[in-house]
């Protein structure tokens, strides 16, 4: 079973008379339980691809099938629902809501569920479990500015998991972190993948990319190469 399939995906930006071909025909299959790192130089189309995968945007042509939905054909409200239910986002700059506490930040996706259910004790317990899973049980009432970068990224990971998504999308998740914290976060993501989570991650760092099961290298809006970097242990 595939978590996500990309079929000849293109994304063009029209700027006046200029056309920017950010993606020029990308095809790829991501099986359930995959952990892939997307690499490539700046401007090669990594972010554009991740935005499409995250249902934040629709492709110009081609198909993106996520859990059986043809994302390109959905309207704005449906895209919102897809993002809420099937996707967990992890950003380079954490993107927590500054006026909310740790617990409130973890709860945000629950408020946007399609049935707009209020948070019951079951969901509350899940939030508390996730907070303890990322090691923040004693920081529930803290606000983001009271936390370190690594701790903020852990809150973001807990938030990404709260609706039990189909895939987790991470854009340079360790880009703002020191190497010790980078390792902690990557350990967390690796553990999640071992539990069966599908993870697609954009990164510059070979050391980070190595932690994925395989790597895709983008160049000029196309997949340039695919393969497996040797993991540390296999070197």
């Amino acid at each position, binding site marked *: 079973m595939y978590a996500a399939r990309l079929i000849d995906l293109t994304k063009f930006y029209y700027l006046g008379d200029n056309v920017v071909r950010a993606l020029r025909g990308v095809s790829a299959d991501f099986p359930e339980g995959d952990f892939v790192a997307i690499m490539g130089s700046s401007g090669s189309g990594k972010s554009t691809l991740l*935005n499409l995968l*995250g249902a*934040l*945007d629709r492709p110009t042509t081609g198909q993106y099938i996520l859990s059986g939905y043809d994302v390109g054909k959905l309207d*704005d*409200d449906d895209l*919102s*629902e897809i*993002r*809420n*239910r099937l996707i967990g*986002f992890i*950003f380079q700059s954490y*993107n*927590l*809501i*500054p*006026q909310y506490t740790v617990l409130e930040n973890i709860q*945000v*996706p629950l*408020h*946007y*569920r399609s049935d*707009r259910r*209020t948070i019951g004790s079951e969901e509350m317990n899940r939030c508390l479990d996730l907070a303890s899973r990322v090691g923040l049980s004693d920081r529930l009432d803290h606000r983001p500015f009271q936390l370190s970068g690594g701790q903020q990224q852990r809150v973001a990971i807990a*938030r990404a998991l709260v*609706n039990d998504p189909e895939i987790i999308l991470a854009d340079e998740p360790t880009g703002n972190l020191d190497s010790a914290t980078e390792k902690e976060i990557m350990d967390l993501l690796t553990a999640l993948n071992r539990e069966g989570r599908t993870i697609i991650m954009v990164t510059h760092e070979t050391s980070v990319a190595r932690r994925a099961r395989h790597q895709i290298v983008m160049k000029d809006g196309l997949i340039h190469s695919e393969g497996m970097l040797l993991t540390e242990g296999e070197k």
Partner: protein
Amino acid sequence: MPLANTIRTIRLAFKSLLLHKLRSGLTMLGIVFGVFSVIAMLAIGEGASAQAQQQVLALGATNIIVVTVKPPPDTQQNSSSGGGRRGFSVPQYGLLRSDYDLLTSTLPSISGAVRMREILSEARYLQRTINARLVGSTTEYSDMNHLQLLRGRFLSDQDERDMANVCVLGAETASTLFPLEDPLGQIIQVRTHRYTVIGIMRSRTASAAIGGSMSGQDFNKDIYIPLSTFRVRVGDITFTRLSGTFSAEQVELSQITLKVRDMKDVVATSEVVKESLKRTHGSKSDFDVIVPLELLRQADQIRQIFNIVLGSIAAISLVVGGIGIMNIMLATVTERTREIGIRRALGARQRDIIHQFLTETIVLAGSGGLIGILLGLSTPLAFGGLKGIVNNFVLNQGNGTSQMGKMFTEMEPKIAWWSLPIAFGISVGIGIIFGIYPARSAARMDPIEALRHE
């Protein structure tokens, strides 16, 4: 959307607004003043109409009151006549007994009439004294002025024919002169004359002063004697001593009250009264015709002036307040672009974003409305201060006894309780109207752009 969610959204809206307390406070000012003006306006309007109604009731809605007015000094000299006894001339002015005869015999629309003559005079019983109003009138006077008898009887036609030395006391006169004794049958002294007390009136709250009449109609300090008795005992000429110099004046009647049979004839009849009196009095402006029914119209004028002034203040404040709120919300939206992007990425639909920012605007405007309502409730206090200012600086310029001025100073604003929910509704409405645009512009942002926003 379930209630719990709405409550949560409101709570979170408060949280966001409290992040910028000063800014939120300043933003609310326009709404605060707008709502305050709405409530104050309605309170003053209610007060004016309540007062007018009370006055009209007290004076009699179908009455026309003709009063003697002392003319301004210069015209008085030219037209002084009558007197001339004892070497110096006594200015004569005011209503004449012949006026009464003329009016009662020529006006078919009236069902009753009463005339009276009044002076302020000290009354005495044993050592006790009171500065009372000595009123000479006839038996109709008590009915015409809605006075109620407490004990004894009022003046009768027989008293009038006999020029009887009898009197009826107002409530305060009775209680001041007779704190312990039963006044009935006792003899009091007014000036050099003695009168036997035959009746006591029930206490009555004072009604407004009318036109050029002596003072507020405080019937409680009255002493009523038959008009014929007044004429023989007191006479038309009264002397007053003011800082050593004597002055005298001659007045036949102080007031004639006419009762009109049909409410719809009141105004027309009053015009006829004015015309016929003008004919006999010529250029002498020594009488005034007061139509209680007109007080209602004057109250309406006051209300209209206040409505226009405060209504404009309210409208301008509310619009300015609304625009201020819109500006702040647009700034807030820009400031929180990143947050909007995050929420959209996490599954918020456009309408969730609209809901969120609209709630914030409504909470902001609604809070301003609540503060305005609290201020509005203090209108009666604030109005007291305003009255002081108006009394000192506006009404005292010139003669200062215009009907409108009097009504203004004697009026108490009344909070119209129904205006509170309406005022709150208006502030919420402002929140919705001026919140829609910022909320929509927040919702229409491209989530990717919003996420990239620094």
